[in-house]
């Protein structure tokens, strides 16, 4: 059984007991435990179910690479699926749920699938579920989906908060083991701005567990010393529980800090995603141990040797009473020694190497441990857990030589440097035949903005496994980075570390070497996805020879551990099957993140009210108070309508329209863009920007203008006012202000940079209020302060002045067809003026109106709306706006584009009014059909509806649309099929439905 040892445990505090719950059962553990170590201490070894076959799974590792021990953590709005027990620090009252099983982990019906494993090899689903066709969607797929997946989806909205943090540093060091600490110490001494991050809560990495001795001190003591040294350096920052998640171009790195995951009910953000810009990135990310491929290696009780050692030394937990150690290298002997020191029986050390190991092997023998060389595991006994192992010769085909009783197998297939961050941005790897590992190729690093390598790997991450070599490599890397950043580093004597003589590792990809297919079918490569040696061989046999094909066909390395345990073993098998060299097969691409990071942390603060900026007009609060219904227009919020008690939205819109037609209405037009164009060349410039001849506009007057893209299509429109000889004020659409301002700057800076013109976007300086309706003038006169009579201010005039003592600029323009004034006032005085106008207009029945009323009012007048009548494919000529296109100018932006064949075709769809015969309203977006179908069997069309409303003024439906040769077909009746099957019939009429002569606005 797995249990807590009576003494030891460098990370746990036996004086602090925490209680926690898994699947409703209560357990106890100590501060410093992980969920995994605490469960092992409580003799709970079954921790999960595999993805494909639902096989029982125990914890196999002690770190980020864990593929098996995944739990749903927390409850309700703090529930999170797929949490690694090995990375979850224990805290009081932690609640966890096992996954991917039904009804429970012990009896999982899905487990029956593994009985059929024989007929479910890699890619079987590509070969079956083919008939009958409808079954895929309705039978096969739903069943497969229900069995797939791991944890359950969170049901509630996340209760936690997240944030981002931006830093710029000289060097980011990822990995707080001895290599990272030593490199930080050196780079820090050189005065570099250093950020050192470590994904776990502890500094020092594996060295203390491995019993390293540095400068004559035990690793723990040496680490404590270095930590205090680093803490004293103001230019060095250190973060535990912080993982280097990804490396991106130009030295950008994502760093993932788990701020409060390890404490229950803490205030503050849960995760903080650091966006780091680093001059250089140094990866001291260590190495990961590889499993060995032998039959039955997926049984609970089979663990990585290094992990077993971690649990014993760090948490004083032994995963079993009789632990068989199997290895192809020296490191696993450390586990055997640690176990026997802790009083745990090690029945044997099974070493695949004929020559066995080096000094550590000697130490094991002298500790009385039995060492079998040239030996391998032929298979394991046990259903839910290991009960024993059958041994054989590594070089044979699996004839059993001996049976050994054991409840745990500690395996080591050698160590693979963690090269993920090195590779994210294109760093290449080289295969080291002697060390049996891929290591970073120093000659092919990822390159940055300066064309030079910007990532440096050091220590175990660079392929060095002995402490002395690791520290030496850290010094080298620190120097390389420092000098690359133009600093110098004084020489420091190399650190002394004890080094035991080791025997070389042997490449062992299957145990035994010549294992027959019957055994290979029981050798797991990817524990979570249930990919076996035989599956990779099958992929190769079927022609999936590229490592990418094999990966995708078998799903090897596509589980939540992204192949940290399985990739190297898998591609070795692939190479072996293809008779190719491992480097020739190559690796799959490493993609960020290194281990999964919360989606919440990626969104950061941008949720709820902060999801996107809301732009509020200076009158926003008044509208809210008035109960306005708002509409998003870009990031703006505009009042759509102001319903009164008991009114529906539709009723309110009608009332607002009639108010403007018969009395007077108030519109918040503040969102309209206002751009000042000034300079000796201003006239010349606006003549290029607008299709109209704007330079001839008189001071004091306004003119409606059109702007096109260079492609010729109508882009924006608005009223231009000439403020003085050198100054124009250009109004744009609400959505257009920023875009048009940028458009103007673009042309001024990059095409006509010798023209003397300055532009300024003053949109937000003003609140703009439209006072529209027959009583508009009376309202302004009641407010008082300016002569707004017809003679003083004719249609399309503007004037500066004061109303109610507030400085204003009044434009006599109309988008409703009624007598109308648009009043610009400094934003800080907008509310005051709005109030003044409302009270002055009370006797006239004044009321605010929203964007919907505005749209209907303009449609009744046949005035186009950018975004309704235009969609990026419409030229002004299509809208009968030829009058606004100057014939005198020899150039303007869009002129050349409009001369192209398609845009100047005579039979283009052109703007008309549409009146239903029934008087009803045409459906929005409906198309006018004509006879026949095109070559692709689609119904031929000859026009479409662009705007359609019920006009309360006229008491019937009105619409505008684009129709082929429309203006020449007045009176013709067109068919508009609706999506409801009804065909709506409408007559082509002039779009000016109301007051075509424009008498009402010109009074």
């Amino acid at each position: 059984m797995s249990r807590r040892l009576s003494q030891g445990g460098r990370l746990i505090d036996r004086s602090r007991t925490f209680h926690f719950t898994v699947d409703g059962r209560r357990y106890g553990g100590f501060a410093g435990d992980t969920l995994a170590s605490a469960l092992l201490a409580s003799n709970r070894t079954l921790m999960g179910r595999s993805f494909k076959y639902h096989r029982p799974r125990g914890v196999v590792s002690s770190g980020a690479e864990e593929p098996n021990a995944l739990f749903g953590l927390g409850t309700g709005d703090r529930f999170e699926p797929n949490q690694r027990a090995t990375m979850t620090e224990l805290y009081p009252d932690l609640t966890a749920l096992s996954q991917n099983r039904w009804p429970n982990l012990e009896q999982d019906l899905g487990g029956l699938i593994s009985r059929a494993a024989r007929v479910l090899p890699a890619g079987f689903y590509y070969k079956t579920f083919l008939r009958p066709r409808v079954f895929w969607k309705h039978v096969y797929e739903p069943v497969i989906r229900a069995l797939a997946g791991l944890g359950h989806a969170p049901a509630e909205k996340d209760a936690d908060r997240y944030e981002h943090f931006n830093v710029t540093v000289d060097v980011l060091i990822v990995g707080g083991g001895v290599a990272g600490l030593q490199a930080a110490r050196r780079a820090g001494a050189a005065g570099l701005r250093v950020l050192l991050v470590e994904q776990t809560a502890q500094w020092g990495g594996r060295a203390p567990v491995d019993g390293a001795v540095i400068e004559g001190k035990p690793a723990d003591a040496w680490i404590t010393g270095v930590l205090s040294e680093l803490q004293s350096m103001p230019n060095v920052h250190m973060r535990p529980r912080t993982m280097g998640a990804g490396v991106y171009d130009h030295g950008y790195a994502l760093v993932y800090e788990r701020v409060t995951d390890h404490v229950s009910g803490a205030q503050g953000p849960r995760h903080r995603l650091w966006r780091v810009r680093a001059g250089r990135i140094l990866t001291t990310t260590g190495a990961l141990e590889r499993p060995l491929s032998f039959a039955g290696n997926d049984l609970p009780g089979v663990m990585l040797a290094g992990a077993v050692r971690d649990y014993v030394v760090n948490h004083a937990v032994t995963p079993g009473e009789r632990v068989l150690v199997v290895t192809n290298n020296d490191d696993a002997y450390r586990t055997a020694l640690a176990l026997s020191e802790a009083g745990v029986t090690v029945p044997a050390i099974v070493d695949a190497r004929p020559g066995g190991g080096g000094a550590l092997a000697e130490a094991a023998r002298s500790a009385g441990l039995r060492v079998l060389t040239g030996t391998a595991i032929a298979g394991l006994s046990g259903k839910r857990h290991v009960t024993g192992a059958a041994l054989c010769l590594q070089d044979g085909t699996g004839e059993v030589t001996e049976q050994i009783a054991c409840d745990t197998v500690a395996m080591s297939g050698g160590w693979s440097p963690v090269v993920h961050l090195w590779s994210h941005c294109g760093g290449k790897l080289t295969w080291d035949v002697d060390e049996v590992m891929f290591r970073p190729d120093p000659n092919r690093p990822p390159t940055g903005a300066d064309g030079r390598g910007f990532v440096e790997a050091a220590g175990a991450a660079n392929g060095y496994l002995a402490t002395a070599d690791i520290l030496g490599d850290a010094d080298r890397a620190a120097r390389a980075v420092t000098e690359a950043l133009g600093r110098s580093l004084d020489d420091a004597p190399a650190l002394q570390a004890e080094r035991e003589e080791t025997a070389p590792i042997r490449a062992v990809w299957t145990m035994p070497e010549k294992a027959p297919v019957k055994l290979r079918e029981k050798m797991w490569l990817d524990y979570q996805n249930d990919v076996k040696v035989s599956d990779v061989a099958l992929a190769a046999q079927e022609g999936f020879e590229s490592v990418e094909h094999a990966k995708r066909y078998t799903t090897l390395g596509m589980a939540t551990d992204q192949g940290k345990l399985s990739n190297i073993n898998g591609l070795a098998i692939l190479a072996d099957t293809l008779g190719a060299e491992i480097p020739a097969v190559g690796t799959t691409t490493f993609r960020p993140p290194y281990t999964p990071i919360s989606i919440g942390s990626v969104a950061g603060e941008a949720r709820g009210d902060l999801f996107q900026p809301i732009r509020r007009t200076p009158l926003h609060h008044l509208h809210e108070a008035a109960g306005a219904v708002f509409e998003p227009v870009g990031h703006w919020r505009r009042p759509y309508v102001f319903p009164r008690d008991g009114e529906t939205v539709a009723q309110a819109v009608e009332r607002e329209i009639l108010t403007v037609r018969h009395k007077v209405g108030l519109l918040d037009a503040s969102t309209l863009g206002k751009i000042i164009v000034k300079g000796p060349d201003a006239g010349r410039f606006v003549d290029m920007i607008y299709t109209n001849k704007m330079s001839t506009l008189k001071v004091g007057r306004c003119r409606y203008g059109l702007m096109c893209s260079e492609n010729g299509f109508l882009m924006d429109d608005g009223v231009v006012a000439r403020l003085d000889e050198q100054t124009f004020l250009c109004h744009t659409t609400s959505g257009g202000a920023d875009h048009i301002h940028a458009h103007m700057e673009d042309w001024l800076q990059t095409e006509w940079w010798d023209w003397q013109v300055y532009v300024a976007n003053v949109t937000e300086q003003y609140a703009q209020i439209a006072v529209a309706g027959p009583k508009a003038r009376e309202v302004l006169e009641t407010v008082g302060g300016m002569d707004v009579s017809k003679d003083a201010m004719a249609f399309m005039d503007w004037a500066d002045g004061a109303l109610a003592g507030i400085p204003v600029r009044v434009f006599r323009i109309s988008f409703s067809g009624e007598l109308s004034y648009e009043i610009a006032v400094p934003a800080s005085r907008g509310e005051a003026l709005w109030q003044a106008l409302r009270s002055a207009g009370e006797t006239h029945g004044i009321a605010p109106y929203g964007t919907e009323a505005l749209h209907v009012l303009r449609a009744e007048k046949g005035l186009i709306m950018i975004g309704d009548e235009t969609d990026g494919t419409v030229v002004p000529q299509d809208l009968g706006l030829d009058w606004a296109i100057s014939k005198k100018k020899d150039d303007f932006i869009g002129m050349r584009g409009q001369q192209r064949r398609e845009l100047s075709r005579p039979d283009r769809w052109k703007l008309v009014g549409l009146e239903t015969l029934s008087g009803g309203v045409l459906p929005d977006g409906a198309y006018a059909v004509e006879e026949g179908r095109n070559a692709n069997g689609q119904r031929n069309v000859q026009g479409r509806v662009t705007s359609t409303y019920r006009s309360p003024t006229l008491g019937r439906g009105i619409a505008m649309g684009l129709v082929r040769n429309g203006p020449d077909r007045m009176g013709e009746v067109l068919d508009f099929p609706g999506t409801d099957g009804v065909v709506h019939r409408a007559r082509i009429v002039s779009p000016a439905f109301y007051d075509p002569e424009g008498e009402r606005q010109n009074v």
Partner: protein
Amino acid sequence: MQRYSAFAIAREALRHHTGWQRAWRSPEPKRRYDTIIIGAGGHGLATAYWLGKLYGIRDVAVIEKGWLGGGNTGRNTTIIRSNYLQDPSAAIYEKSRSLYETMSQDINYNVMFSPRGVLMLAQTEAEARGYRRTAHANALQGVETQFVSSWRVKQLCPIISLEGPRYPVLGALWQPRAGTARHDAVAWGYARACSDMGMDIIQKCEVTGIRSEGGQVTGVSTTRGEIECDRLGIVVAGHSGALADMAGFRLPIESVALQALVSEPIKPAMDVVVMANTVHGYMSQSDKGEMVIGGGADGYNNYTQRGSFHHIEETVRALVETFPMISRLKMLRQWGGIVDMTGDRSPIISKTPLGNCFINCGWGTGGFKAVPGSGWAMAELMAKGQSPLAEAFTLDRFREGRFIDESVAAGVAH
């Protein structure tokens, strides 16, 4: 060819699956072929497949620089829909969608086409108008879509939040017969079918030159020798510019990075594909249980297959707002692909200045859904010299201003 079926699997199981044959041969290139297709991605393989199936042209080599299906075919978010606004787009995407429905049976390879339905959310009045217009157009184009209420949206996708503080869901354009498919399987299945028709699929063979005489292509130079042909099809997505260069013409194309990501797998949580174009994000759940997420493209020329992370952030924040429950899921893997953007964001399936050379490119962010239809049209164009499905997608439309602009209906993302 070894037929695939449940029975075949059971039979092979008896001999521990040692009897399975190669899915496709990998032959040495011959000296000459009737037709060469450059590019063994989905579009290239589909072109070869239909050349063989519909026109009996089987002396075909499909030449691939890397591994078949190794480009965007294996990098996209596998959405298949045809609810496009403009007639030419709707025609080819609907043709494609309908071919997907029977693809698994046609090629005896399960591509897992899952017609689970696609919802395109309308989150502003303008977007709602755009989708109502699309629904009207689709009805006349023979594409089954409808504009549905927000209530129906919630019914179809319970995890969605209708009340974003910004963009409440006003409704959606719903295409019930749209869905997803297993992207790799499409390439593998077509490759297997082409190989079975006797075509040569030549991987790890890079074209280094295109040889022509008197305005006609005579063959290609490759890293595996000179190969002659009577007809050439260039179907190489991100490499189109380079190939066009070799053939001596220029394309109205710029290549940019488009990114995607997947979450860790969870039990079934959504049964439809949801696209939210106002906030630039779309999401579906794969059969494995991963949330498959995509968003907008970068704005600068890039061939690195790595994008800028702030686009991932933008996409993710949009989807956290739309589906609050994903906040506590984890991002498992993110990646980028290179997409070719044309002047109007619509593809090119066209003749070229070289008489017997044809090009199929510029699919932008929408290529996967078009694979079978694009191959169908390209094959027809190469075999007959013209194709109704391809007619509008010519190379010269930009000169004349004859754009096929889909962005007008806000249906920009794919």
